[in-house]
């Protein structure tokens, strides 16, 4: 719906939509491109978002301060909690087309307001030939592939960002969605995978890990083996939500899923990193590292000082994503990760990220009130 009449004009659009493969270029080339894209985004948000501009002013950083790749860490970043309580816009409010929230049921959620351009860029990444996916989706097309979505369809995904993102995979191949209301139609999904494996070259099962785990249990429970072979692919994203206690480590997960679905190669299982505040998918390569495209600057901060950490040191994962036009996507995230620059073991040059764990929020077990109740005048 956002793909019409929007010709790629800017540099960012030419990179997101263009078919040149940045992975064919060196680490340094990508870094230079990153500097240009993220600096341009910084200038845009300084000019268009008064709250952000005044924050940057208090931090004493202007666009002129960003001259080299090393300066990118100086771009003032926001904690995600900002989006839990207020609207932060870099476009006029009437340009916002959707307000997204994270999934999950508890706590206050972030709300991210996206305009057509921001969503359009996300859609632009969702193509099987995008370097974003490495060569995971090579050979996938509308005629030979099908997607089994363990989530709601796009029209049913409402404002839940993760569901929306996953449903966009329908741009690549026909998709069936198996979450209706609050029900997951597991039996139907398993039956359709069996049928599709006969009819199609490639079958993709996509969903959060706990639903993929349920899917595997359904296959095992059915008694009849499902022969995934080299035709079945599993694409996971998101966390374990309220089923955290069932969390499997990645190795164990791959083993359970690989065995249940008789996959020829565990590399047919890939994970993607995303969060509602981020406008880009970071997709895992053959070596379980998540590759960061040149429009995103990812690095880590020392949790103690919040100062940027050198390459490879575990810390608080931070992003600056140039594809977000409607809000300043300069974030201090909620995960611990390592970010590395160089040539990945998979052979692709660039920046990669390895997630370590989620940060625990504060328990605030004391009796000090930290959130003020609304002040009422007498």
């Amino acid at each position, binding site marked *: 719906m956002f793909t019409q009449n929007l010709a790629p004009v800017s540099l960012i659009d030419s990179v997101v939509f263009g078919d040149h493969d940045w992975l064919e270029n060196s680490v340094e080339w990508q870094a230079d491109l990153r500097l240009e894209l993220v600096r341009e985004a910084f200038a845009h948000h300084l000019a268009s978002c008064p*709250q952000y501009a*005044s*924050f940057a002013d*208090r*931090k004493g950083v202007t666009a002129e301060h960003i001259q080299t790749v090393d300066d990118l860490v100086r771009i003032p*970043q*926001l*904690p*995600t*909690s*900002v989006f*839990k*309580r*207020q609207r932060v816009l870099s476009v006029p409010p009437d340009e916002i087309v959707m307000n997204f929230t994270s999934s999950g049921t508890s706590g*206050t959620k972030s709300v991210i307001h996206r305009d057509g351009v921001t969503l359009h860029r996300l859609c632009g990444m969702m193509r099987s030939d995008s370097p974003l996916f490495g060569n995971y989706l090579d050979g996938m097309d509308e005629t030979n592939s099908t997607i089994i979505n363990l989530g709601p369809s796009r029209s049913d995904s409402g404002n839940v960002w993760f569901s929306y993102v996953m449903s966009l995979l329908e741009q690549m191949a026909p998709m069936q969605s198996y979450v209706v209301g609050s029900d997951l139609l597991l039996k139907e999904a398993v039956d359709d995978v069996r049928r599709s494996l006969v009819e199609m070259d490639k079958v993709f099962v996509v969903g959060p890990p706990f639903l993929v785990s349920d899917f595997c249990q359904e296959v095992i429970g059915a008694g009849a083996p499902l022969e995934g072979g080299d035709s079945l692919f599993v694409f996971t994203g998101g966390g374990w939500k309220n089923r955290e206690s069932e969390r499997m480590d990645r190795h164990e997960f791959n083993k359970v899923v690989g065995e249940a679905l008789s996959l020829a190669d565990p590399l047919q299982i890939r994970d993607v990193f995303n969060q509602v505040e981020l406008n880009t998918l970071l997709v895992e390569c053959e070596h379980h590292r998540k590759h960061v495209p040149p429009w995103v600057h990812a690095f*880590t*901060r*020392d*949790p*103690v*000082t*919040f100062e940027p*950490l050198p390459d490879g*040191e*575990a*810390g*608080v994962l931070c992003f600056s994503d140039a594809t977000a036009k409607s809000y300043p996507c300069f974030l*201090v995230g909620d995960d*611990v990760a390592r970010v590395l620059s160089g040539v990945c073991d998979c052979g692709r040059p660039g920046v990669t990220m390895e997630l*370590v764990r989620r*940060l*625990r*929020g*504060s*328990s*605030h*077990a*004391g*009796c*000090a*009130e*930290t*959130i*003020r*109740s*609304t*002040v*009422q*005048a*007498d």
Partner: protein
Amino acid sequence: MNQSEEGKPAPRLKLPFIVGGKRYVAPGEQQVLRTEDRCEVILPAFTADVKSKIDGLDRNLLRDVPIQDIIAFLNRVGRNWRSSEYSRRRLFIAQLQMVLGYSEEAAEHEADWIGVLFTSHARMLDLLDIELGSRFILDEWVRSDEAMVHAYPVGRVTHVLPGNVPSSTVISLLRALLTKNISVLKVASGDPVTALSLALSLIELDASHPVTRAVTVAYWPEDNELGAELIRSSDGVVAWGSAIAVQRAKERCGAEASFTPFGPKRSLALVGRGADPHKAALGVAHDASLYDQAACFSVQEVFVEGDLEPFLTELDAGLRRYESLLPPRKLSTDELAYLNGRRLDQEFAGGKLYATASRAAIFVAPADAQLDPPLEAPLQRTVIVRPVKDLVEALAHVDEGVQTVAVAPWDVIAEHRDELAKRRVSRIVELGLNNVFRIGGTHDGMRPLQRLVRYVSHEAPAREFPKGMVLPLDQTKILENKSFQDVVF
């Protein structure tokens, strides 16, 4: 991030429950509490066996024990705590550091408070006089106009305790013992140490003393049904801590049981034009450093009238001074990341970072800063300074969520006292004294001892003329003569 810190096994501490003054060690099942990445505490599981043993305790155990005996016993316990040689005290100090991340100095200070509170026998009697009307009323019938009134314990009081303000546990227990109740101290996962240390110090002094046997210490997770049943069958519930914890306790509290909420509150300071910047800033530094701002009486915001710069300079120095007097709690990596995130949020909302010490930080909030709801306060010694032209401007930020308003100079309070009271604050104190609850003062709008007793009245007989009458009370005669209006004045 230090990579060796990640995944390093946390030290383990195995602790018992105390049921009716006896150590309870579970044979099989266990609960493991992880306090950040500092420590793993292993406790017995809260099983049907524990619950039935607690249910079997005599709720009237202390009913007939004279107040003086209770206070005398507490005094002996307190004297132990006052001694730096006392092994339980030493263990407590070590455990506060290990489990809660306290500095040694702050843990020592906490142990000192236990000693002071337990030995404050004269103040305990004053407290009974003030809150219950007489210090004899729990021991005997006390004349109360045309009645004799005797206060009795409500029975079994369950305390839902907070995680990181140890002195709340001490105060909660003392109030219940002083009103002759038996107590179930339900510890928070963040602090299983304080309640257990207190109970063990009673056992060590005299395991058979009724006061010792009146104390039970246990832990169960929020969703534990046996724990919920225990709360439902309690005669009184005292709930401390987060809004969610207090709300849950209230929902589970029996309809006829007494409920005493000490829910989340915040506190603030007013610094008037005439204040000595050094004294005022040191007061704020004290009130914001104690418990690293986790207490309801911790000052989070300061409204400063007049010249800001001298106050800020002094505040910076004061916070640093308190970092050496009472060094901050050791925080986990995640707690530090969380704190940094909240401070960054203050900056985004318009706060200007004025200074940081090794933990403490000062933000100055201009009038246009959006620091109001629902921005979360960072705590951990983060002081938000709001310059005002007149202290009256501070009133707009005061609501029922404010517990204590600390003021300097003291005389400016006369001007604002009534307005603050109308806005439902519960205490007004001099700056630097937030943690000192004076005799006669109230706590969160209450006189809490009153909630822990039931009163029985033994009223005057007919031959005693009721007030307003000049003859004995003969209701039949009054009805026959239709003289009700004539005899009652």
